[in-house]
């Protein structure tokens, strides 16, 4: 390699295949041989070697993170069911044939922008939209949980600032998957943080960044499994409000490139390409990003001013791949020339390619019409935000980078964006036969103890320790909160959160509902059912607080292991197909999504993958925020109804884990059944017929009913015999703890019973009990001579004390 103008010339024209592979590996390009050969051919055509900055640019643009090349590449898929029958299918582009396809086929008018911008946008009212994006930030969070989660939050917020011409963030959501915090320190591999340290730092990172931005963190989920010890998952999401006339962006030839926000340093170099590598803890300090929320807050304040003054034509955030991705994307249809010397640096000594692909935080890139040059600088100066013009958009469809007056990169945009070779991968999935467990019987005492063990299980217990560290009420708009209780002293787990954006849209009555669905335990047995259940759970959660399923959009986030293993890719294909089937049936379109693959790690030369994990996030519009409800019980003598059918579905359940059985059927989704129930619940809430509502998920009916009781301090009496099951006979224990989808517990005043039954005449609705006037939670079955009695305080204690550090 020769050094010219701070750049190395990468000698590659004559390299053999082996040498190309080595070149890619040694430089963390994460490019395949096929891709390296396309690049070699391109430069052979130009009769010159590339500079390091050119090949880095291509590596960033073609990275898994930016291009999703696995899920948009060719996949040859074979599926075996338990009868050994085979199904073979080739996908030319899995995402287009599943997730995007739902949205295209449903073709909802209220979806304003899908899969094209930094976030999806749906209609809020005639003049405003809601933009929503959820991203993963796994690798940085594994290395430095505090820095990782805080920059994850910062990045999600910038996605919302960079959608259209910029949305104003309303709320954040955060979802984590961690290892069990109670493992012994000596069981943790060297160089890996103990889960407790990861959890504490990750929560502190989210809190510090979100709180300092003044954006409430209102909803989330946490899942614990030892498969995440070495590779925790961190999902960060933000939604915001954007005026309808600020959604379309474009770049004109001659527009200036304005770089705004933080200075550039060596932070996060190779973050984009790094995300397609498995974790190794020798990763250098440069892979770590440091966040500064106050810079981002200043950028937010200033850029919304500039937006409302119409001072720029387009904007995007600097995320993975840094300037390379941001400018490459903005200029793909025009061309761009960049003067790299003008980029403000944190310290000297950066090589040009490092400046170009650094993932330093809190930076945005704007396309500014030349006539607004001085005006826009003034706006940023007022908020003390650094803003520097670093180039312009040209008409020659080439990316040209100059450094010290020399051209150090000159590549064709068409090559950069359109000529990445499609990968072909093989995928295999063997559908496991699920076997009904042996019928389960227990003494009353044992059932009681099991209920408390469930409530205190890591995957069910209170997240209060986390939630309270997040300012979930800043902006004053969080009217359905993450923790809900009928008094200030007690609380239960809310299903979803609702934001009432009265500060931004004067006089509105509408609200935005946000919820999540996640259950990797189902995925260990069946990734199709995991994805289907995640969609249903997200929808159920939103519906339980008053959302209308006809106005809900979905986001997908796939986190999987190394897709070069056919089995792992097979699991993804199955999950993607579930996304299509179930979202189509519910008529809920996907508007945005993300994937994070290669989540694997090695311990003593053995490779492990994380549990396959899909997160589904739902966002919906509430027509009238006064028609929303919470989950704690409201009044004694009110009747309790269960909507939906209870099936013998204990596979992958928390109950199965606790009593240590490996059999059981994983819960299926019955969209035609559930959809009617969800519509009915919305109708009943709208007509003020529902006092409280809670969905059944982890832990099943018994846990959901107990939560409603202890969140209110009110007792309940439940007749287990009255619970409607399907054909397959179930013991009372199975009825109590089965995790069947499609079920809601509804509290209704006696005088409203008939009206509720009228609404539910087309669906299963069973009276199962009532709210008592003491604080005892009683489940009884006269048929099986079972009577369990616990008081709400003890149950609340069991639920509260696990995660309470």
């Amino acid at each position, binding site marked *: 390699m020769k050094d010219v103008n701070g750049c190395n010339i990468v000698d590659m024209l004559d390299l053999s295949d082996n040498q190309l592979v080595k070149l890619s590996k040694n430089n963390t390009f994460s490019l395949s041989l096929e891709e390296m050969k396309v690049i070699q051919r391109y430069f052979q055509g130009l009769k010159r070697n590339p500079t390091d900055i050119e090949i880095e640019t291509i590596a960033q643009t073609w990275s898994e993170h930016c291009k999703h090349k696995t899920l948009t590449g060719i996949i040859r898929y074979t599926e075996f069911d338990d009868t050994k029958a085979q199904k073979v299918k080739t996908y030319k582009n899995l995402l287009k044939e599943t997730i995007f396809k739902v949205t295209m086929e449903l073709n909802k008018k209220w979806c304003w922008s899908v899969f094209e911008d930094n976030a999806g946008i749906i209609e809020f009212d005639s003049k405003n939209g809601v933009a929503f994006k959820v991203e993963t930030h796994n690798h940085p969070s594994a290395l430095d949980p505090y820095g990782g989660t805080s920059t994850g939050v910062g990045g999600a917020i910038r996605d919302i600032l960079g959608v259209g011409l910029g949305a104003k963030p309303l709320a954040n959501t955060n979802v984590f998957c961690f290892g069990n915090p109670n493992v012994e320190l000596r069981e943790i591999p060297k160089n890996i943080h103990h889960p407790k340290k990861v959890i504490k730092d990750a929560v502190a990172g989210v*809190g510090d960044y979100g*709180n*300092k*931005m*003044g954006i409430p963190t209102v909803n989330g989920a946490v899942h614990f499994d030892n498969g995440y010890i070495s590779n925790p998952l961190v999902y960060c999401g933000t939604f915001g409000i954007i005026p309808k006339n600020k959604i379309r962006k474009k770049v004109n030839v001659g527009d200036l490139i304005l770089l705004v926000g933080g200075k550039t340093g060596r932070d996060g170099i190779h973050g984009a390409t790094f995300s397609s590598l498995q974790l190794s803890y020798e990763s250098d300090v440069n892979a770590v990003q440091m966040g*500064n*929320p*106050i810079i981002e*807050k*200043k950028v937010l304040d200033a850029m919304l001013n500039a937006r409302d003054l119409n001072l720029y034509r387009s904007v995007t955030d600097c995320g993975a791949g840094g300037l390379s991705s941001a400018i490459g994307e903005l200029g793909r249809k025009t061309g761009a020339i960049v003067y790299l010397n003008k980029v403000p640096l944190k310290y000297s000594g950066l090589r040009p390619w490092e400046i170009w692909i650094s993932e330093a935080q809190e930076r945005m890139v704007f396309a500014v019409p030349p006539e607004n040059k001085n005006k826009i600088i003034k706006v940023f100066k*007022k*908020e*003390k935000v650094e803003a520097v013009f670093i180039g312009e958009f040209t008409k020659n469809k080439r990316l040209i980078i100059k450094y010290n007056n020399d051209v150090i990169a000159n590549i064709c945009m068409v090559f950069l964006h359109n000529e990445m070779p499609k990968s072909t991968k093989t995928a295999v999935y063997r559908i496991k036969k699920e076997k009904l467990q042996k019928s389960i019987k227990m003494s009353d005492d044992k059932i009681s103890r099991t209920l408390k063990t469930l409530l205190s299980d890591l995957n069910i217990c209170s997240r209060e320790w986390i*939630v*309270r*560290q*997040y*300012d*979930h*009420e*800043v*902006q*004053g*708009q*969080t*009217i359905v*909160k993450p923790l*809900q*209780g*009928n*008094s*200030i*002293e007690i609380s239960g787990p809310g299903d979803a959160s609702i934001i*009432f954006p*009265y*500060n*931004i849209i004067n006089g509105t009555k509408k609200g935005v509902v946000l919820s999540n669905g996640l259950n990797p335990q189902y995925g260990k047995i069946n990734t199709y059912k995991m994805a289907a259940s995640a969609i249903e759970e997200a929808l159920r959660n939103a519906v339980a607080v008053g959302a209308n399923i006809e106005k809900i959009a979905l986001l997908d986030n796939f986190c999987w292991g190394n897709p070069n293993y056919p089995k792992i890719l097979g699991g993804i294909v199955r999950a993607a197909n579930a996304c299509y089937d179930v979202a189509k049936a519910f008529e809920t379109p996907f508007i945005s999504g993300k994937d994070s693959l290669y989540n694997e790690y090695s311990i003593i030369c053995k490779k492990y993958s994380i549990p396959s994990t899909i997160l589904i996030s739902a966002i919906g519009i509430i027509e009238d*925020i*006064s028609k929303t409800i919470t989950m704690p019980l409201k009044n004694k003598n009110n009747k309790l109804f269960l909507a939906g059918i209870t099936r013998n579905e204990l596979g992958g359940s928390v109950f199965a884990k606790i009593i240590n059985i490996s059999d059981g059927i994983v819960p299926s989704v019955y969209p035609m059944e559930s959809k009617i129930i969800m519509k009915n619940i919305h109708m009943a809430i709208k007509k003020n017929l529902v006092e409280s509502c809670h969905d059944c998920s982890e832990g099943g009916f018994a846990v959901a009913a107990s939560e409603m009781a202890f969140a209110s301090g009110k007792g309940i009496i439940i007749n287990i015999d009255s619970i409607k099951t399907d054909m397959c006979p179930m013991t009372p224990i199975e009825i109590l703890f089965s995790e069947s989808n499609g079920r809601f517990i509804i509290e209704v005043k006696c005088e409203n019973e008939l009206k509720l039954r009228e609404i539910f005449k087309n669906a299963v609705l069973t009276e199962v009990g009532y709210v008592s006037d003491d604080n005892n939670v009683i489940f009884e079955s006269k048929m099986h001579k079972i009577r369990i009695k616990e008081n709400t305080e003890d149950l609340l204690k069991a639920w509260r004390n696990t995660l309470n550090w």
Partner: protein
Amino acid sequence: MKKVKVLILRTAGTNCDYETQMAFELCGAFAERVHIDILIEKKNKIFKYDILAFPGGFSYGDDIASGKILSNEIKNKLGDIVKKFAMSGRPIIGICNGFQVFVKMGLLPDPNVFEQVSSLYYNDSGRFECRWVYVKIEKKTRSIWVKNLPEIISLPVAHGEGKFIPKNKNLLKVLSKNNQIVLKYSSKDGNIPKYPLDPNGSSEQIAAISNPEGNILGLMPHPERYIFALQHPNREGFDSKYGWGKIIFQNAVDFVK
């Protein structure tokens, strides 16, 4: 009738300015968010306003300590006019970060002295806490901000550094003698609360104090987040629509009228 004008001072890291603005406007005032640099440039602009509000947030990231850098900046660059504004008897409110700034520059407990004699330090729990609590309005308070309220109301708190600490015991006596203690954390029935209803371990459960004259209020809870009944965890309030926090802003607006 004259429109009451409110100046909401903001800087890098201020983040409760919009809801504070909405709270005042809902009470019939005209509220304007003004960046500190603008005020430093034209100091006398401050006297065009009737009420001064320091909203919540993390001014300059609360780097070093909460409110420290902003209090330092105000004292050095705007100290004289803020003091003059305070002495004129016009209402001033500092919410959360605003209260931290007041205490650290010495605007509270007494702008005549204008020196730091108390502090708001790290919560006993050692972490940021966001929750609703009960506060009791001290019977003898002279604060113009807390009239027409029931004896105990609930309000949300959200802070990591809210533990009120006086320089010495004597100061507590003085505050009490001058009726400068405005709000105390309380249990639902008015008794001394335990954590978490006492969210930070403040001396004497102090949640808010005023100057001896009662026109300046500094408080850790966020009344601007309780303007509507819907914002309450149990949707309680008055006139079936409003939250008790609104009264606090209404009192100041009515006082000026």
